[in-house]
């Protein structure tokens, strides 16, 4: 096991936002964190990163805390006017391991440049020399995913990575997350798109109204639970239950998923 949280209390300045958060993360897990705005999703990410301490409970790393945890936060403070090219932004993923003056080693990827590799997998190799300020939101997010790849961390935290991103980019980046999981990395993913959760995540943590619920996505993200944790309203739940009960009649999972994303 990589990480075990038991009975965590999360919040700032001694005021708990949420109590009794418990979950386990194994290598290869994709854990979705779902919750209304202000439910404690970003606070959880900051606590896992060690930026703020937990107010109670325990955060255990059964082996050892990884040297680096990859983090892709919301882009509110990102400065895309900084004079930097796409390839430099991707290479930034490695700086923590390089120290002050080290150089990027090519050993791990069989002699290949890890930055080039990451840019190819995120489909931005053709814009590697573009300055950041000309990128679209989707291209910038691909570059940030490339940075995350270059960081080569066993645990990856992604905080609402698909805000303002088009469907094609989202689908491709979700596939990339699947690949990371197949490489035995663990991913913790804050997400609002429930269809994506059901398709790509094997665990879910529902936060809301000061409480937490943990389990498989299909157990946790039921209409009743979503209502009791303040994520959707009762009327939305009635509509959603209709969707669930139609499940056997659905020709493909795709259609259901598409409809759910409107919730």
């Amino acid at each position, binding site marked *: 096991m990589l990480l075990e949280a038991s009975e965590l209390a999360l919040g700032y300045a001694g005021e708990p936002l949420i109590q009794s958060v418990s979950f386990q993360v194994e290598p290869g897990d994709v854990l979705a964190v779902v919750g209304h705005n202000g439910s404690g999703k970003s606070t959880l990410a900051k606590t896992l990163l*060690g930026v703020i301490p937990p107010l109670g409970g325990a955060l255990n790393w059964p082996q050892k805390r990884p040297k680096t945890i990859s983090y*892709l936060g*919301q882009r509110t403070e990102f400065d895309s006017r900084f004079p930097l090219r796409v390839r430099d932004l991707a290479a930034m993923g490695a700086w923590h391991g390089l120290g*002050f003056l080290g150089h990027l080693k090519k050993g791990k990827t069989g002699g290949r440049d890890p930055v080039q590799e990451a840019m190819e997998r995120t489909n931005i190799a053709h814009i590697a020399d573009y*300055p950041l*300020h000309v990128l679209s939101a989707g291209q910038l997010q691909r570059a940030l995913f490339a940075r995350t790849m270059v960081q080569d961390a066993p645990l990856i935290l992604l905080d609402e990575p698909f805000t303002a991103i088009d469907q094609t980019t989202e689908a491709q980046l979700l596939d990339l997350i699947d690949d990371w999981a197949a490489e035995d990395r663990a991913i913790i993913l804050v997400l609002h798109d429930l269809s994506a959760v059901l398709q790509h995540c094997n665990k879910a943590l529902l936060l809301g109204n000061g409480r937490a619920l943990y389990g498989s996505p299909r157990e946790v993200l039921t209409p009743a639970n979503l209502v009791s944790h303040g994520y959707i309203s009762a009327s939305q739940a009635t509509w959603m239950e209709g969707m669930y009960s139609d499940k056997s009649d659905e020709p493909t999972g795709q259609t259901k998923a598409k409809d759910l994303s409107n919730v």
Partner: protein
Amino acid sequence: MFEWLDYEFMKRALVATSILSFSVAPVGAFLVLRRLSLAGEAMAHAIVPGIVIAFVIAGLSVYSMIVGGLIAGVSVALLTSFVARKTIIREDASLASLYLVALALGIFILSASGSAVPLKSFLFGSILGIDDETLILIGVTATITLISFALILRPLIVSTIDPVFYESQTQKPGFIGQWFMFLVVLNLIGAFKALGTLMAVGLMILPATAARYWVSTITSYLLLTFLLALISSWAGLIISFYASEVPSGPAIVLVAGAIFIFSLLFGPQGLRLSIQSRKASLKTNQETLSKTVTNSPEIAD
């Protein structure tokens, strides 16, 4: 044509401003990139009480002024970042509040002690009278600054471009910003004697803003900033040599200002780009509009 090279004071001034350009260029570049251009200006005023107190106690000595200026500047910088991190006001507001208090305190002490400070050289420097002590001060400042930049350049870039990511990857998120502000203060003191409190900031900021219009990688940006600072210094000194009524500090800053305006007008990322991209975005808007109209039945589905 090169008769200005025959004068000892010109040689000293050229050496001093060349080394200063090396030193203040990266500081100015990151002041601009970290959106702290005005903070640099404010810091120049914040070091005033330290220098005034040192002057009142020990007279016009370079060393006491360094110590006084450093104490005042670093205190204001640390307090600024502390107040910004711990309370709701942002760094700019916090700095504006503190530097005004510092400046008022400096003038208050100066007036109360009845000392007569040579105000003009205080504001505009006296680059034509640079002594050995000042040259050594500038050399030490440049050495500390360049070694520091070699060490902190990467974290400085990361913390500037993506502070949230930076915070997630380090144990001491405040350290880089504090070290950078220390370098700002150090360079202001280094440039203070030669260029005065007002002009020092000019040599920091103007080459950095001008260079931003020409390049889009950080390495070329830092190099060009240095180059423009150097050109400004030399051209300004030579102008002031021939037009002997013009003090060198303002002459240097005016040359830097001319380079800035030229870059603003003709640089690939200056006004030219802004006009081009406005035209382009108008065109795209029209295309999007026509596409939306054509696709609207699908959207309704």
